[in-house]
């Protein structure tokens, strides 16, 4: 009986396997049908924003082209997860992905798979007049979104918000992403002057910790220094300038005299880790710095009593809230023997993660015509910020330039913006709309305050990687980043840099860090040759 039973079971197994296989039959080739005017789009949206279908700008775009769109809008943490599921399940494929922050490796893989279709044949005067006009103004634009296999799978976005520095070059608004702020009221309360070296800052932080600086009667609720470990704008690497570097790049990529290297394996990095462990031991660093999220961080800064002595962010007001006037920039500090080094953040004005069309789309031409409207300067303005009548005044001023309404600023942008391809040329400011005051202030501060201490203006450019380089980088970099982040956080908290350093370097080597650096270097060398 046992034998017979097992025979029955195996028959059952085979049967289910066959069933499963037939379930995954061949996919039909999508035929082009010019009459199709209905599309399905998977879209990423800002967490505060309503569904794309409810946005006036979308309704306007649909009406102009006579199309209807079924939106599948996803926001927040689930975006990556949902996007991966849709891209990899092979079923329920939408006609296009918009604002879904596609990574280069996703674009290349899905492009070569045939999931995304090449778009270059649609980029012409007839189908995409606005984009073609833009390409005429910025001839390099299409090269930045061409993948190593020679195809364009995603449409470009350009944002030239920057400034011309006294050295004659243009710099981007994010050249120094982490601005440190220090509480000058507290400085006065402890009777100390603005620190210029890292050791002076140390003494100031000790004083912040010991005294009741905010005067609420509790000497223990002052947090001398708070940050978010590894965060692009709330990180702490601005303080590393005292050890000769800053580590703004998330991949720890740095360049000096044309030679690319890995920042987190340098001797300077080791010294910084050792130094800041001392601060942690003395209780100068917020113990939540390694686990808090943006909302906790901002709550600390903008709460009833000011709690933060020194913090880091894109700008002071967003974190400090109503206490913003009490803070002042704490610019780059120097270390022993006057060491002071800054590595600028990498400069990029173009992106290409906003729009891709899938092979499921029956009428790509119309869809491309539809999205081309996003490259119209006035529509672009409304995509980046919000609609005319809500974010901008209904009528332009006497120069024909749109002015922000009183409600603009704060979180209105996050509620009205659309994650779609767009253009923002440096010449658009003052012609179609004015630059927002916050951005203007940040650019001025970067040039006039923060750039004063910058000696080295070299940065890694936006290069185009070959297929092979992309593969090397993608296979290794995410594990390397995780490892560096975990190990460094543990060093600052628990110490042990001296003992752990050799193991750390060996581990990085065995994880392929040298291959990754070599890939960065060869892409850079090729870029230098091409631009010369």
């Amino acid at each position, binding site marked *: 009986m046992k034998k017979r039973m097992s025979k029955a079971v195996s028959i*059952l197994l085979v049967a289910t396997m066959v069933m*499963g296989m037939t379930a995954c039959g061949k996919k039909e080739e999508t035929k082009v049908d010019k009459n199709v005017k209905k599309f399905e789009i998977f879209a990423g949206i800002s967490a505060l924003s309503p569904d794309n279908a409810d946005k006036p700008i979308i309704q306007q775009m649909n009406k102009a082209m006579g199309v209807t769109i079924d939106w599948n809008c996803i926001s927040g943490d689930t975006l990556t997860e949902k996007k*991966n599921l849709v891209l*990899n399940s092979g079923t329920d494929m939408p006609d296009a992905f918009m604002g879904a922050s596609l990574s280069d490796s996703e674009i290349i893989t899905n492009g070569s798979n045939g999931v995304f279709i090449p778009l270059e044949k649609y980029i012409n005067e007839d189908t995409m007049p606005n984009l073609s006009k833009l390409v005429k103004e910025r001839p390099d634009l299409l090269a930045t979104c061409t993948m190593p296999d020679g195809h364009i799978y995603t449409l470009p976005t350009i944002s030239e918000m920057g400034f011309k520095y006294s050295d004659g070059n243009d710099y981007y608004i994010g050249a120094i992403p982490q601005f440190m702020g220090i509480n000058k009221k507290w400085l006065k309360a402890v009777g100390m002057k603005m620190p210029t070296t890292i050791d002076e800052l140390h003494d100031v932080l000790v004083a912040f910790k010991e005294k009741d600086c905010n005067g609420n009667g509790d000497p223990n609720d002052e947090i001398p220094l708070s940050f978010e*470990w590894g965060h692009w704008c709330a990180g702490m690497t601005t303080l590393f300038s005292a050890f000769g570097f800053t580590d703004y790049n998330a991949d720890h990529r740095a360049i000096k005299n044309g030679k690319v290297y890995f920042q987190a394996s340098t001797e300077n990095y080791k010294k910084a880790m050792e130094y800041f462990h001392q601060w942690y*031991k003395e209780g100068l660093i917020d*113990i939540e710095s*390694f686990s808090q999220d943006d909302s906790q961080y901002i709550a600390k800064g903008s709460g009833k009593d000011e709690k933060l002595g020194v913090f880091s962010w894109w700008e002071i007001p967003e974190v400090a809230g109503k206490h913003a006037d009490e803070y002042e920039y704490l610019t780059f500090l120097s270390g022993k023997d006057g060491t002071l080094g800054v590595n600028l953040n990498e400069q990029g004005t173009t992106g290409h993660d906003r729009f891709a069309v899938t092979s499921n789309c029956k009428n790509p031409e119309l869809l491309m015509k539809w999205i081309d409207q996003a490259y119209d300067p006035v529509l672009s303005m409304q995509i980046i910020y919000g609609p005319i009548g809500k974010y901008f005044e209904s009528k332009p001023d006497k120069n024909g330039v749109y002015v922000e309404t009183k409600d603009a600023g704060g979180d209105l942008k996050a509620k009205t913006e659309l994650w779609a391809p767009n253009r923002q040329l440096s010449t658009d400011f003052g012609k179609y709309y004015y630059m927002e005051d916050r951005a203007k202030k940040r650019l001025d501060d970067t040039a006039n305050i923060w750039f004063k201490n910058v000696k080295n203006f070299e940065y890694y450019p936006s290069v185009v990687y070959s297929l092979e380089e992309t593969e090397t980088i993608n296979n290794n970099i*995410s594990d390397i980043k995780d490892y560096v982040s*975990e190990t460094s956080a543990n060093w600052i908290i628990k110490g042990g840099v001296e003992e752990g350093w050799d193991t750390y370097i060996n581990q990085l080597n065995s994880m392929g860090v040298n291959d990754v650096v070599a890939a960065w270097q060869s892409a850079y060398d090729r870029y230098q040759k091409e631009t010369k």
Partner: protein
Amino acid sequence: MKGTRDNTKAITQKGRPLWKRMLSCRELYLLLLPGIIVTIIYKYIPMYGVQIAFRDYNPTMGFSGSPWVGLKWFHKFFTNYKSMDMIRNTVLLSLYTILWTFPIPIILSLIMNQLRFKRFKNVAQTILYAPHFVSIMIVCGMLRIFLSPYGGLITSIVSALGGHSSVGLLDQAENFRSIYIASAIWQDAGWGMIIYMATLSSVDASLHEAAKVDGANTWQRIMKIDFPALVPMIMIQLIMSFGSLMNVGFEKAFLLQTDLNTATSEIIATYVYEQGMLKSMYSFSTAVGLFNTVVNIILLIIVNKIAKKTADISFI
């Protein structure tokens, strides 16, 4: 009654072919059918997707069309610097969980069984069950608030008792397992005791009366009457809990994970989620998941063998 009669007939008539015996108790098989169908649809059919662990999965080519890469993903997993730590974390977390959470429902049920004051017994039972119905998301949210370094309930208690820490309790890797297990006991011990209570209620009251007449005290009665009655159930529960040894609750480990406690909180399940769902390395994460399952099956078979030898209870 017909079913029962046919059933006995089927057992006694050993010589008849299988299908005839099956036909003679068709009502029972009909009852079994929905269960079998559900198992096939949800457990067996998806299994054919496991082949992507040996392939370089590409959605356009489908499961069976993607190129065959053999053991590439397994090799990648075992050469990963984290893999040994993850396996150790998974095994230790589940072993400790079983070790600590397994005996408590048994002890609780033996105690509850001795309670004679009905109303108190009911209230106590309800209080013990209640946490089971709180969603795991909420439990983890509560834990994060209680363990917060600023004004968290548990942190305050610890520091009032003289404990001092410069790191949040949840951020210390060495605390992770204790937090995980202690909250598991709080949440599920009451619920787990139901099955033992049910077994105890079927113990013949005359045994207890006879023991009392013979002068046995409460302790002796628990050890000689109640506990032996529980042994078969304990063994079954033990096998079942070993069956899911490597499948420690993913949600809870993931929700309690912070960047600083990954040294103990990174288990295979959270890694599979990270690689598969977030980094879309489906083949790799399937391979890791498959490895996890294979280890689990081996463990299950070993425990089953041991149980068979010691208590003559077996599932397979």
